[in-house]
């Protein structure tokens, strides 16, 4: 902003140098005839506002238009007590700068206000002393109290949908809008039974707090695990972050779609029973729905050895409510030539999207009819003996 030239400096520069240049250098410079010639010390923003307790810098430039090279000694006037300043050029501390015709030097003024500097406006003067002139730029620095600290919490996808067995992972961004580094505590309030853990975005470590540098942000992941038997519905999770002074909250939503889950149970909880070969026996099986949605069209089937007859009544259960149960009778007839001992029968329950099976152990007993036949043989032998005794008994 060239309008920041001081009228006084402008007058001094023009009066001292324009006359000397008018005759000797008029032809050699390529500048337009009416462009000003001279050496200037300028800054883009001569009136700035800075935070209390912080160092700051100002960009300066030294320009030479159509004048011989000039050495300019730099200094600052009106510096309050306890303040420090320093000029830097080309990365090094400098006290003076030289600029050739048509050239520009960039300089930096670095200022450190006194530690107890009050928040008000300070007037200073930037002074450049050349051999035969004095360049001066008045600058004003206003120290202001720091902006209030604040914390921002944003969820990338605040509402997720899934089944009770899935993990809900929310990506969160915590931003520290304050001039100082802070440690942010993390907390999540869930419905009872839900499990929430904070993690780094690409890490497995669980977090309870996270340090964030001034004006920086951090990406976190919040994993919410609902309990297995949660009924379908919408659940809200409140996430809070706090530094002790400031806090930020956001609300997350879990939309849990329920699914049926079947658990098959044998007669009074047992997985075994006994049956006589060739005779029908009946066992009561119970199908439990431990899921979060009704189980529909639950079919019961069994895989038994060949020659066995197995059916269920009912063979199909229309609906089992969540947490409910239904009973079915298994009628089993072992093959009539089945030999005694234990057989395994696979019992399956299969609903829409849910199934369970168990191995039912059937102890086959053989019929005792042949045992009676054996007794009959012994009886015949006894009768033969009795006959012999009556026939041949010596009287």
């Amino acid at each position, binding site marked *: 902003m060239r309008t920041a030239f001081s009228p006084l400096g402008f007058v001094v520069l023009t009066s001292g140098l324009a006359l000397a240049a008018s005759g000797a250098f008029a032809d050699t410079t390529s500048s337009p005839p009416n462009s000003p010639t001279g050496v200037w010390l300028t800054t883009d923003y001569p009136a700035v506002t800075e935070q209390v307790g912080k160092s700051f810098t100002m960009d300066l430039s030294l320009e030479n238009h159509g004048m011989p090279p000039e050495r300019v000694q730099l200094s600052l006037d009106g510096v309050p007590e306890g303040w420090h300043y320093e000029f830097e050029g080309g990365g090094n501390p400098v006290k003076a700068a030289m600029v050739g015709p048509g050239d520009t030097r960039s300089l930096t003024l670095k200022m450190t206000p006194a530690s107890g500097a009050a928040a008000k406006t300070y007037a200073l003067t930037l002074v450049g002393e050349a051999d035969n002139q004095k360049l001066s730029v008045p600058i004003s620095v206003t120290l202001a109290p720091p902006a209030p600290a604040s914390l921002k919490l944003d969820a990338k996808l605040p509402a997720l949908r899934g089944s009770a067995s899935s993990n809900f992972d929310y990506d969160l961004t915590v931003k520290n809008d304050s001039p100082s580094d802070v440690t942010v505590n993390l907390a999540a309030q869930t419905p009872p039974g839900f499990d929430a853990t904070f993690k780094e975005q690409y890490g497995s470590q669980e977090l309870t707090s996270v340090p964030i540098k001034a004006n920086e942000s951090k990406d976190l992941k919040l994993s919410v695990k609902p309990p297995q038997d949660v009924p379908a519905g919408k659940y809200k999770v409140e996430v809070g972050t706090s530094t002790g002074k400031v806090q930020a909250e956001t609300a997350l939503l879990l939309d849990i779609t329920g699914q049926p889950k079947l658990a098959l149970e044998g007669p009074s909880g047992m997985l075994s029973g006994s049956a006589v070969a060739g005779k029908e026996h009946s066992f009561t099986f119970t199908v439990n729905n431990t899921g979060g949605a009704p189980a529909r069209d639950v079919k019961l089937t069994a895989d*038994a*050895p*060949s*020659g*066995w007859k197995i059916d269920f009544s009912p063979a199909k259960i229309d609906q089992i409510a969540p947490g409910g149960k239904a009973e079915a009778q298994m009628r089993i007839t072992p*093959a009539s*030539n*089945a*030999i*005694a*001992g*234990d*057989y*395994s*029968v696979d019992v399956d329950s299969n609903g829409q999207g849910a199934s369970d099976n168990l191995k039912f*152990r059937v*102890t086959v*007993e*053989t019929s*005792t009819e*042949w*045992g009676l*036949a*054996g*007794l009959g*043989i*012994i009886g*015949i*032998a*006894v009768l*033969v*003996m009795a006959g*012999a*005794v009556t026939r*041949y*008994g*010596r*009287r």
Partner: protein
Amino acid sequence: MRRKGHALAGMSTIAWKEAADHFSSARFHFVMLLVILTAFGSVYGAIGEIKNTIGQDPFLFLRLLTTAKDPVPSFVAFLGFLLPLVSIALAFDSVNGEYSRRTMSRILAQPIYRDALLFGKFLGGMIVLALCLLTLWLLMTGLGILTLGLPPSGPEIARGLAFLVACLAYAGVWLAMALLFSTIFRQAATSALAALALWLVFAIFWGMIAHALTIALAPIDPTNPMTLVNAVEMQSALARISPNTLFSETAQALLNPQTRALGLVFMDQMEGAIPGAPLPFSQSALLIWPQLSGMVAAMLLIFTGAYVTFQRQEVRA
């Protein structure tokens, strides 16, 4: 002349006297010594084998009786082989011995009927056998408790007692057989040789005879699998004529609870069966019931034969 009093009066006197004579006879001592020594040998071998090989088994005490350690056969195999010998030793001269000692007319001069004499002699032999088998079983069980450090379980005791009954029936068949020969042959040596010959046939040669008979009676046609089934069934039916086969099948089903069938089993009958699952005792008993009742019936019929033969003989002073 109609006889007075009960037909079997005096039978128990004869039976107990007979048993007492056996217990004090040198012949019986010698045979029982043989049985007890072989039994100890086989059970001792079985204990070593069980300690080496079997970690856990619900039927350890039954294993004690069925485990063999080369070259000693198992206790059950020994019993199957030696029990007929004990029975023959007890009864091969029980009737003809009375004749040769000329004591028959003296006994019959007592108020005892002939029926009671033969019944008493048979029962006396059975009492001796029962006491000996019970003692043997208790000895083996005690040896098992001492060396294995475990008491036998309920099913093991039930199976052991059922096995004792089967042993008794098996020994009874041979006792009746020896009694029959002792009534048929007047010479004790002849009856002993006849009984021993029969014992050898059934103990050693019967398997070969059954096999040869099967080939003759049910030839196998390689193109017809049913002939093979018939042949196998024929062979097992023939083998079961021998009381030794009946006894070994009974012992197998009673002492190996995993035994589910004793004959031919088809693949479709074993489908879905859980291998190695033990049968309950009642099912094992049902499985061997035909064998056991066959042995009991054979014992009764052979004894009836001996009775008829004896009743038709002339007793002279």
